[in-house]
């Protein structure tokens, strides 16, 4: 009777072994391709990293303050000034710049990949039908589960960190680009067509500008998810603020972990506010309407 009541003590499916064998196979087949795909990501990341690290903090803060003033006004400029100064005073400037460069690299790649996918999804019901379950899956997987296949496929370090961040953060941008374009009033699109605009022109001149607010909301999500992932990715040896926290926990170094944590919060505040300001400011607002 026992096997009937507790069947799993006697019979299990070696799913773990299968997964390993499957992944081994994928790795052996696709490793060269994947390593080649890594090269441009790495080059871009290094470019951003070098630029941010080479910028002296004073100049970095000045740029952020001016940008904040131009985008929105004194309040935003002041937020940028205070947050960045605190980061610098805590001694987390270099780590913050490393994290920021990973976030920037990941977000740019997300835009390059996510925006066209979102546009395509909006234009083709069929494509969206197949894309949607994939997006659902990508959004339900917890962030650190992504780390396993990425480590196996791309190794460890900052570049795989960017790649895993992209996987994790790109979904809202695709979704909201799709949603934004589908939400553009049909007669506005029809009017553009009726006056002789080509499909490309309708997309660039009518649909994207009118979907702008929704797309930028997606971008904001993508940026914040990138930041959270860039921290989690410290588990696969990605440098920056996340590593300060992780190492702090590992060594029971409460001070270092706290500095890292607060640094992450301050960076997040700056990034979020600036991206939101980008969404709110339209050419008309700036013209003083």
């Amino acid at each position, binding site marked *: 009777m026992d096997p009937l009541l507790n069947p799993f003590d006697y019979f299990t499916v070696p799913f773990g072994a299968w997964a390993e064998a499957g992944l081994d196979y994928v790795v052996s087949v696709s490793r060269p391709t994947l390593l080649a795909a890594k090269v441009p990501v790495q080059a871009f990341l290094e470019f951003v990293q070098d630029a941010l690290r080479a910028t002296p903090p004073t100049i970095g803060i000045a740029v952020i303050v001016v940008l904040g003033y131009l985008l929105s006004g004194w309040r935003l400029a002041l937020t940028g000034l205070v947050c960045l100064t605190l980061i610098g005073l805590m001694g987390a400037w270099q780590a913050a710049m490393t994290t920021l460069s990973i976030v920037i690299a990941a977000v740019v790649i997300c835009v390059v990949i996510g925006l066209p996918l979102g546009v395509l999804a909006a234009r083709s019901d069929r494509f969206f039908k197949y894309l949607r379950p994939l997006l659902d899956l990508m959004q339900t997987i917890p962030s650190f589960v992504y780390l396993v296949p990425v480590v196996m496929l791309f190794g460890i370090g900052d570049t795989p960190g960017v790649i895993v961040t992209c996987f994790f953060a790109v979904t809202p941008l695709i979704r909201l680009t799709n949603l934004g374009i589908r939400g553009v009033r049909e*007669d506005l699109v029809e*009017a553009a067509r009726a*006056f002789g605009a080509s499909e490309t022109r309708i997309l660039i001149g009518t649909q994207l500008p009118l979907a702008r607010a929704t797309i930028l909301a997606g971008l904001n999500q993508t940026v914040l998810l990138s930041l959270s992932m860039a921290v989690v990715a410290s588990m696969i040896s990605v440098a920056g603020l996340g590593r300060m926290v992780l190492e702090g926990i590992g060594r029971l170094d409460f001070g270092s972990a706290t500095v890292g944590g607060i640094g992450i919060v301050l960076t997040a505040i700056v990034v979020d506010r600036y991206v939101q300001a980008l969404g709110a400011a339209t050419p008309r607002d700036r013209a003083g309407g």
Partner: protein
Amino acid sequence: MTEIMPHQNAIDCQNLWKIFGARADEALVAAKNGEVDKDEALKRFSCVIGVADASFSVAEGEILCIMGLSGSGKSTIIRHVNRLIEPTDGQILIEGRDVMGLNPKELRQLRARKIGMVFQHMALWPHKSIADNVAFGLEVQKTPKGQQRAAAESALEKVGLGGWSDRYPDQLSGGMQQRVGLARAMAADPDILLMDEPFSALDPLIRKDLQDEFLKLSREVKKTTLFITHDLDEAMKMGDRIAIMKDGRIDQTGTPESIVLRPETDYVSRFVSSISTLKYISASEIMTPGKAKSGAPEFGASTPLPVLLAAFTEGAEELAITDGETHLGRISSTDILQAVQTDLKRV
């Protein structure tokens, strides 16, 4: 008077069918053979018949009103003219050219230069200034910037919105927005205007203003116009001719007078039953044979009833109807009263 040359129609639509649905081809064959009607097509093929065998033509400079209730297919028809919708079957000719034969570039040129369209809900682009909205058709055709601006401003001038160029659509009232819509349609000086219920979203008073102004403007610029409306009064007012649609078919096409006085189907007669015929009745229709008393005022056979009525209120006892020389008949006050009585009964 010189004989008018027999000229090509500006728009010619022949046996147009539009069936929506995956099995449109099967449904088309069945519908053409008369095997299925609108409901049957939906049941058997899950297809919606939008337009069924519609033919009409619009002469150069003419205003044709297509009138029908919602779902009658009128908005679908108008979108075939500039091929925003592809027909399932049939032909649309613009000045003799088949629009289905145009390649994408020619089609875009046709839309930008030859045809202007006005939409029910204005459909102005909120992110563009008024001038940029109006100049859009020219912009897509890469007209020089200066020319675009000049054309936009002159079009806005025509609709009474000079000086509003740099505002944005949301700063304008509904009536003003539709004026912009009209200016946008006319900016490229197209020969044809497509108007898809342009005034139905407006308040009654503003609607009347815009109708009057459009008629005035239309007389000046002489544009061939296809005008869609669900409002019979509007159709009577705007149209040189009216086509009445029901369930995707055109029930009757004719002048406002002929539609009101001689409805050909039950549907049309029910429709026009609320319209008073008095304005459209002419002397020839109510005169009785015989010679009027000498000295009675003379009128032509096509004189409309309101004019005849005025003659009686000014003291005439009887009217003589002539074609200038020959005597055709006479009209007494009783004839007039009978006409009024008949009209009152039918309303």
